[in-house]
């Protein structure tokens, strides 16, 4: 991605997310599968931009790579809990934390990512893929609602969407290692 493209995306996405937030939160599917990833993605875009303007951030990312990684992992995993999805609707403090912590998770993930060894990155890719499959499966077949704010149909739809994400993501990973023309290192 070029910087210009990043800038354009960032400038476009931020207002889109803010304006659409109410609408995205009306359904569990768009709340969890669209809004939360977008918040992380915006943070990631921002970090990408920052890094090009401030090389010192690269050094920072190198030095604190493990802490940054842990922060983003814990934050992202917490936001997969149905409990927080509900809380973000009824408790303004949790809603505030959502808008703060997820972009920050995106930022820290980008800052540390390039400093992580290949094997660790591989594990993270696979674990994310496995998590999508596990959550998608659970949401699809659970007889009870996990969120009080959303209906069971919505939850099942989310299950389908997460499994769809897993399929696309898995194909992307597979094609990049099976076909990928460029040589690592």
């Amino acid at each position: 991605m070029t910087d210009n493209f990043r800038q354009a995306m960032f400038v476009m996405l931020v207002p889109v997310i803010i304006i659409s937030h109410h609408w995205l939160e009306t359904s569990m599917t768009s709340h969890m599968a669209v809004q939360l990833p977008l918040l992380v993605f915006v943070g990631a875009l921002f970090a990408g931009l920052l890094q090009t303007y401030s090389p010192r951030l690269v050094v920072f990312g190198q030095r604190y790579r493990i802490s940054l990684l842990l922060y983003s992992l814990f934050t992202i995993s917490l936001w997969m809990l149905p409990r927080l999805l509900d809380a973000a609707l009824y408790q303004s403090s949790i809603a505030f934390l959502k808008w703060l912590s997820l972009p920050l998770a995106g930022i820290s993930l980008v800052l540390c990512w390039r400093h992580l060894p290949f094997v660790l990155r591989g594990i993270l890719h696979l674990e994310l893929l496995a998590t999508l499959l596990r959550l998608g499966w659970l949401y699809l077949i659970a007889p009870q609602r996990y969120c009080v704010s959303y209906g069971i149909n919505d939850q099942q739809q989310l299950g389908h969407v997460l499994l769809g994400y897993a399929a696309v993501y898995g194909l992307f990973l597979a094609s990049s290692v099976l076909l990928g023309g460029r040589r690592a290192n």
Partner: protein
Amino acid sequence: MTTRTQSVTAQPRERLYLQLYIATTLAIFVLMMLAGVVMRAVQGTYIHMSPDWFYQIMTLHGAGMVGIAGLAGVSIMWYFLRRYVSLTPGLFLANLILFIIGVVMILGAILLGKFGGGWTFLYPLPAKSMGLWSHNAAAAYVGGLLVIGIGFLLFYLDVARALLAKYGSLGRALGVNQLISGRIDTDHPPTVVASTMVLIVNTIGTLAGAVILVLTLVNLYYPTMQIDALWAKNLIYFFGHVFINATIYMAVIAVYELLPKYTGRPWKVTRPFLAAWSASTLMVIIVYPHHLLMDMVMPDWMLVLGQVISYLSGIPVLLVTTYGALVQIHHAKVRWDTPAKFLILAVFGWAAGVVPAIIDGTIVVNQVMHNTLWVPGHFHFYLLLGMLPMVLGFLFHISRHENETTKDRSVGMGFWIFMVSALLFIFMFLYSGVMSVPRRWAEHLAAWIPYDQWAALFGLVVLLSMLFFTVKLLARLTHIRLEA
């Protein structure tokens, strides 16, 4: 083509790791064989044992053998692959350490926690023991498998890194590009092809394992989160099937690399070789429904797939490895040392094991053979007479003296005793299957007991010969060379 990236000083450390792998492998193989013989002896009423202990030992035998076959396979793959790409010694060791941690967890779950859910932990049995074992014990078992899986994944990802660094893509490493372009690079190492195949299938298998193992754990502690038993079965058999298959595909590297040293003939990649391995990559992934032929609720097309692919997947084995090995020795002045004998026995065991496997993979046969002792019969064929001899051939080769001229006659004798007793042992399984004896039964009907008694005796001889090999190999542990 060959690049040596490890510095000379790193060698002793890696050699030590390999020795640790080998010592662990031998010890666990012997112990698990002991467990197996005990089971047959209990069924044959030679030993009395309560069913709870029988099923605990059965779980131990299954999990232990699958795990150690994987570990032995990794040591063979690592040993040869590091001649072509640069692997990270630390991750090779990490796999072993995680393996041992996992083994301790599993041992604790089984011996202390009385977990006896079978190595396949078929959902929802781990959570429904009827009070025999606790959820913590089941969790320790499942967690142990998870830890072992992580260890293997670390190793495979390091292999992926190394292969990508050298070949740019796994497709290239597997030789798919050569198949497409038709220009075969005969210098492309068979070891790289086999390793790539194993890496691909086992990564996908581990992914399935990671999904089902974690959900099993979740279900143990949060019983309201239930999963679908049929999907769980699919994922478990996919994971289990791929993992145990991959052990042979790793071990067979020893045949490709070592047999030529005894025949004096090269074993190079050819078009059929590459095609066979590419086909195997796909088939190992899609063949698992042959475990589910008696689940009529499965879609019919998947059952047809299970039968047809289980037939087809025998072809690469037969036409590339078996055929290749036979051409290797055909009118060649073979030095019939112990390793060469084991390697040829291994190829025979693999090819012969395919026969009862394919027959049982046919739905009409499966209707009356599934979950009888025919099933352990077929997989003991290619594990006991295929996979294990590959490992033994490999170990006898890398630990032999530089200029070994005097042949160890006792090992030669041991080879014949092992081969004959193992064949008889396996045929007792197969014959019991013909007699409709169900598998995984702690107590047998009186009519079945004679077969069990013969099996226990043959098994005891197999165990003793393996114990003898183990003693011999442990004594030679210090002779192990990384460049043998």
